[in-house]
């Protein structure tokens, strides 16, 4: 694994060691003539290799397993995720070049491979077969309970008392249990220094690669694809090769029992980009999918709003400068610029535009709608005037149906997989028995479920809500006209609505409390809440995140006026 050459057969860099001490390629099993001894001289200070040559560990365990390191596991996972993304249409460059290189860079920077290990650090990894006596005398070895109590943001496994109780009975003299070589060490490592790899971070890697390539997949979409099962995440470890035995502390690392959250993946990605010392990412220009103009178009369509609103979103984007290349392009390590959430930003722009045109104070928008309705009665030519009320009813109905479906899906989610998980040999038979019982019960009650349970994943789709202009029931609003809410003034179309209300007068300090504003449903009009809820559903994030972006945009938009009138009004006249 410290061997950097590409395999002659398959060009992969994925080496293992055979019994005879030769290197073999894990991908195609091509065995080389290169032996350990040759490589050793280059990496004398790498104690991992040292301990191998000392023979402290057996190469092959009795149960047909082999030695494997945690980062190998992650490598496999990343590979699978990249393949899945390829299947979704992402260019193959992503897997073979971008992601691969990011990963190697990470390994190097975190000193897990491709480097010289500093002399002071020794690997105290232990495997299940050893009850090594030399461990007893080591005072620095962490207690099992200490390892258990390390809080993991991704795992809920610390609540698994059966592990705790079984492990607590284990005395200090026996080893920490993990299938991998460095499972226990991995959990011990100081997080801050080396940006330890976690499952959610695999998605950060993916997103980073996607961003570098400027692929048309936003982070919220990526996460949605993960939840829908198109990208391996939950239980992906079950596809590890047979030889890689997974148990004990490995589970804490690879078995997650919660879905990753947008913020988490997003923040980690930026940390990662800085950690890897990456240069400025490729420019996000106005022809990119991630540009607010493009994303707004997409979201407007999905939200069943008139195409004409796009003019307005573009105007807002231009006015506050969020369409600029320098604003949108990621510059890792630059702490002064705010990190751009492309999808949330675009959604927030639409919300602001809706506020500009309809006010959304639970009053004005309905008045405008009635007005438009009246005019529609006499309207014979051209498209119908957009009526907020009709749009609200149509969209709410669909949204409610979809939300209900989503809620049920969430309740029916199956978290466990076929591969039984157990922490120690003691637990193994119990775990297997339980698994068998679960399968039996699933069969028994599955038969009684009546209608077919959709075990198939829905086809991956970029659009969750579809509105067709061909529907004659008038449920598609794309072609509707905004004439009902606009007026001409000095040759320009402006909104009839003269007012605007700010979500917040003062922005919070994001670094202190994590948010720009604090959204509470009761403090805002229902219409506003509805609109937030719509995009919250589409992006699968909390409404408060969109609200934050809305506040940010508003403050940029009304910057001058705010500065002047901050002390006096909450409602401004445009």
């Amino acid at each position: 694994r410290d061997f950097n050459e590409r395999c002659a057969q398959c060009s992969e860099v994925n080496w293992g060691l055979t019994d005879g001490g030769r290197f073999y390629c894990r991908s195609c099993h091509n065995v080389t003539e290169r032996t350990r001894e040759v490589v050793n001289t280059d990496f004398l200070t790498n104690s991992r290799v040292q301990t191998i040559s000392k023979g402290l560990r057996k190469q092959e365990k009795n149960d047909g397993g082999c030695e494997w390191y945690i980062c190998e596991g992650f490598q496999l996972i990343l590979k699978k995720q990249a393949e899945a993304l390829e299947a979704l249409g992402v260019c193959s460059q992503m897997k073979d070049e971008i992601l691969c290189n990011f990963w190697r860079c990470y390994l190097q920077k975190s000193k897990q491979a491709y480097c010289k290990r500093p002399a002071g650090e020794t690997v105290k990894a232990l495997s299940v077969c050893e009850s090594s006596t030399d461990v007893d005398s080591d005072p620095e070895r962490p207690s099992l309970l200490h390892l258990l109590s390390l809080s993991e943001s991704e795992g809920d496994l610390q609540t698994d008392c059966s592990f705790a109780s079984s492990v607590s009975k284990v005395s200090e003299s026996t080893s920490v249990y993990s299938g991998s070589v460095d499972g226990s060490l991995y959990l011990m490592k100081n997080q801050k220094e080396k940006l330890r790899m976690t499952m959610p971070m695999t998605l950060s890697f993916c997103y980073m690669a996607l961003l570098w390539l400027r692929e048309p997949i936003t982070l919220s979409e990526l996460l949605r694809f993960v939840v829908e099962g198109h990208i391996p995440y939950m239980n992906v470890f079950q596809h590890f090769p047979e030889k890689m035995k997974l148990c004990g502390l490995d589970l804490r690392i690879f078995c997650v029992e919660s879905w990753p959250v947008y913020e988490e993946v997003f923040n980690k990605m930026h940390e990662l980009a800085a950690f890897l010392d990456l240069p400025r990412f490729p420019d996000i220009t106005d022809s990119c999918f991630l540009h607010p103009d493009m994303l707004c178009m997409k979201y407007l369509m999905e939200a069943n709003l008139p195409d004409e609103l796009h003019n307005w979103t573009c105007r807002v984007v231009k006015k506050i400068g969020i369409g600029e290349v320098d604003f949108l392009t990621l510059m890792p390590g630059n702490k002064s610029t705010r990190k751009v959430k492309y999808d949330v930003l675009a959604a927030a722009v639409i919300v602001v535009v809706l506020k500009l045109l309809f006010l959304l104070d639970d009053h004005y928008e309905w008045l405008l709608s009635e007005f438009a309705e009246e005019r529609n009665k006499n309207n014979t030519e051209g498209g119908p005037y957009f009526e907020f009320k009709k749009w609200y009813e149509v969209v709410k109905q669909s949204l409610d149906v979809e939300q209900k479906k989503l809620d049920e899906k969430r309740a029916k989610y199956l978290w466990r997989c076929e591969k039984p998980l157990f922490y120690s040999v003691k637990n193994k038979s119990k775990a297997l028995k339980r698994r068998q019982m679960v399968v039996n019960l699933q069969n028994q009650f599955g038969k009684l479920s009546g209608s077919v349970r959709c075990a198939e994943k829905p086809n991956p789709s970029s659009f969750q809500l579809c509105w067709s202009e061909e529907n004659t029931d008038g449920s598609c609003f794309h072609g509707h006209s905004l004439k009902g809410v606009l007026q001409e003034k000095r040759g320009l179309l402006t909104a009839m609505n003269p007012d605007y209300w700010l979500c917040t007068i003062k922005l919070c300090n994001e670094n202190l409390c994590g948010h720009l504003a604090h959204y509470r449903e009761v403090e805002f009009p229902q219409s506003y809440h509805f609109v937030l809820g719509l995009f919250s559903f589409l992006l699968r994030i909390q409404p408060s995140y969109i609200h934050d972006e809305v506040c940010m945009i508003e403050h940029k938009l009304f910057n001058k006026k705010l500065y002047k009138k901050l002390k006096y009004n909450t409602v401004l006249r445009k």
Partner: protein
Amino acid sequence: SSHEHRLNFRKSKEACLSYIQDALLRKQWKRAAEFLTCYVESLEKDYSREHIGPSEMIWRIGTEILWHHSQSSMKEFNCFMEQMKTLGVKRYLKVCLEHVFHLLCNGQIDEAYQNLSLAESWRFGEQTAVQDKEMKLIEAYRGLLDYYSWSKQKNILLEHSEDGFSDLAVEQEMHSYFRKAAVNLKEIIKIPGVWDVFVKCYVDLLEFYGDHNEARQVLNEYAYNSKFPSNPNAHVYLYQFLKRQGESKKSLISALKILHDIVPSHELMIDFNTMLQKSKKRKKRRLGLEVIFAALDYAGWKENAKAWSCLARQVKQIVISEKHLDWIKQEWDSRKDWWPAFHFSRYLAKRNWQENKSLSYEKALVAGILLGKDCKYFKYVSHQGCKAQLKRFRILKKFVNRHNPVYLRISG
């Protein structure tokens, strides 16, 4: 943390449970099964901190679904129960017992018996001692089924003896069931609790074999031992036994006294009042009046002609003797505000007259005494009665008119 909204295993399963609960309440068994299928993987997580763990949930929910689902068979049900028995050692006997109940509901007495026997022989280290109560129940129910078999044999025997046959084999079997049943039933009723069915059966056995002393002791314990929860049926059983034994009125009365205290509206209050009325002791007669008034406080007794006739008889007797009018006054004081509307409205007068003349007669008498001859009820009924030329109503009218001053004394 700010990620509290994220979906994790626990939240997902909580949501799943609430969908199951909703489906169960709406009797949507298919839907409940659908969600339960998704819930069962909770078994692989540890919930030892929770009050009710997933294994218990699955047992209870699964039982409900399999019991009611149209496509579920008894075979499936039994198979499921066997699985549940292996799931939780701490619940083993409870699951066995509930399984037995279901079998009995389904009429599968033999299977139920087999399961009980099997459960009785279960041993599991210290769990056996911990689940002692459940074990006693299991033994008791087996005893009950033994009683049931005994009863069947007894009937066969009686039939045969009528036909002139004597059947030694049946008799022996009968005795053997008796022994088995008696042992277990005796054990359970020692423990404080509500054991109506066990007590009844045990007493039945004892009476058949002539052990009246034991029977009496058992019933006394059941009724009077303060460690046992207050149970009206205990007193009823004791009373019925004493009556069968031909005991004195005195002991019968004392058996019913506590029943009156616990359940003033019990149907035996008529018997009670009848006995008390006839007593020579003044206190007892006084109590009788209290008893019958108290019973008629309850809506279920409003149209009970027998009860009204008891009250009427006693009231009449008091009025004629002119002694103890204060008794009536005492009873009437707390009732005069609401009994008129409750019992003696004009509407009721009409209805009672139409539906049950005897009832109206008795009520009219009481109304006439308590409320005077001018009260709505009495006026209407007596008028109707006289119009119909029924002799007793004429007599009634005279009687009430004659004793009208009594009303004045009572109401004043």
